[in-house]
């Protein structure tokens, strides 16, 4: 196989994980927002924070669908899913077991400094994982209200709306955080990267969204243009330094 190129940012995990196929049974679903859900499964899977899985959506999509991984305190797999189309609706609603391929991509190993995690509700599972694993604060940036139960259950720090998000960034850059990890929409990741790097904070890491077909580096579909040429999100990512992508 074409060997994956070397990771660009410092401190990243170079661990090469073995993929496997799992059948997951739903254990619990919590509403995060009106269209986004945190799903906990019965099963435990070994993975590194930042990695993702591809979920077979049966007749509701021609490709498996990518979701970043998280786990509960006991190590049970969790994913958070925003319903945006037929596949995500299936994942949230079905009573069937879910067939997944995991763990995919490279884990994220943050710099050994103070940092913070910012996620959209759709990436809450990943955010919770990173926050717990590396013991760094988590901020949730949502467009719509968060469900009270989940806020209480996880003691979430959150803001709602674009205006408050910019305000949050303003506040954070005066804190003593030296790196940030952002996972959400492309727009949110771009704005955050640009906003913070304009303030001199270069170590902004983003978990990229590109259309994925295979998830394992075979199809070359998930290409992204970086400052050092074409990279593949499923192999070289999904986490990249923001300033590799946007200037």
């Amino acid at each position, binding site marked *: *196989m074409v060997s994956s190129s070397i990771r660009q940012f410092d401190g990243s995990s170079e661990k090469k994980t073995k*993929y496997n*196929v799992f059948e997951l049974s739903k254990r619990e679903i919590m509403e995060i927002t009106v269209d986004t859900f945190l799903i906990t499964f019965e099963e435990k899977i070994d993975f590194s924070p930042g990695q993702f899985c591809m979920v*077979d959506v049966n007749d509701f999509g021609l490709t*498996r669908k990518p979701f970043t991984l998280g786990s509960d305190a006991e190590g049970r797999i969790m994913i958070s899913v925003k319903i945006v189309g037929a596949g995500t609706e299936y994942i949230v609603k079905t009573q069937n077991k879910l*067939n997944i391929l995991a763990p995919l991509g490279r884990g994220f190993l943050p710099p050994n400094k103070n940092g913070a995690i910012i996620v959209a509700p759709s990436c809450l599972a990943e955010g919770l994982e990173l926050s717990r694993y590396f013991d760094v604060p988590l901020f949730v940036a949502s467009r719509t209200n968060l469900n009270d139960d989940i806020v209480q259950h996880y003691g979430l720090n959150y803001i709602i709306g674009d205006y408050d998000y910019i305000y949050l960034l303003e506040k954070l850059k005066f804190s003593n955080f030296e790196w940030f990890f952002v996972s959400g929409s492309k727009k949110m990741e771009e704005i955050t990267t640009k906003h913070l790097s304009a303030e001199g904070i270069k170590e902004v890491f983003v978990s990229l969204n590109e259309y994925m*077909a295979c998830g394992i580096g*075979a199809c070359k579909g998930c*290409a992204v243009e970086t400052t050092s040429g074409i990279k593949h999100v499923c192999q070289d990512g999904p986490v990249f330094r923001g300033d590799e992508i946007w200037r």
Partner: protein
Amino acid sequence: MEMKKSGNKLNLRTPIVIASGPGGFGEYFEIPTIDWALVGAYTLKTVTLNRKIGNKPPRIYAKDGYVINRIGLENPGFEGFKALMEERGLEEVISHVPVILSVGGDTFDEYVELTRLLKPYLNRFIAIEYNFSCPNVQHGGLSIVSDKNEWRRLLQVVRKETDSFIIAKLGIEGGFIEQMAEVAASEGWNGVTVINTIRGLMIDGENRVVLGGLSGPNLFPIALRAVYEVRKRLPDIYIIASGGVYTPDDAKLMIEFGADAVSIGSALFKNESVLNEIGKSLQGIQNT
């Protein structure tokens, strides 16, 4: 790896082949649930003379029964591929499953030069598939088949260069596929892969225009017809059916209407377990 070849038969253990492109350079070998004894052959991603970095994103999208892709033949080129062959990964694949090499080119000369450069390595592969559906700079973005005389000359030159089992991968655009298959057969080629992707235009979820090749379920009735038409005219050619095969029934229909082997491409993206399923269902069908 035993490699029986007799005339236009590949003698695969099962008549199921991983398609060039979706299968990359063996990456699926890392998924431990695939039963390789059920896979007849693994076709590698098309290799070109020079390295290609591929197209700018977006490169792939799926909806409404089809996948569209404009990967742009990203591949390491001959030199990179040579290095790859020396890596443990590809060796391991080749030692466990018969491998078909896929080659492509922008021009007549590139195909020929690549064929010559590859000569010392061809014995590792049970067959060489020539992808004649690459966009071709000399023909304004169309493939080499758009000049039928030049294409026939190319078939002749390649046939002279190698005694490998050579397969022409043909699309339904650029000519009538059964006529193109007749040309390949008449130049002594052993097989044809029908069909390749069909050019399409899609607007993706972010409202971007994607100009690419269509694959997936929607191709099935078209590919099935192409197999039927080619087989009707050429009883002896080896046919690999490619296009929209997702189920054992799809695969069986392809074989019923004339295919010797069936290629699985986009279905891998849904779930690679399709290889085991189809492989199992076709196990009875021998000597292909």
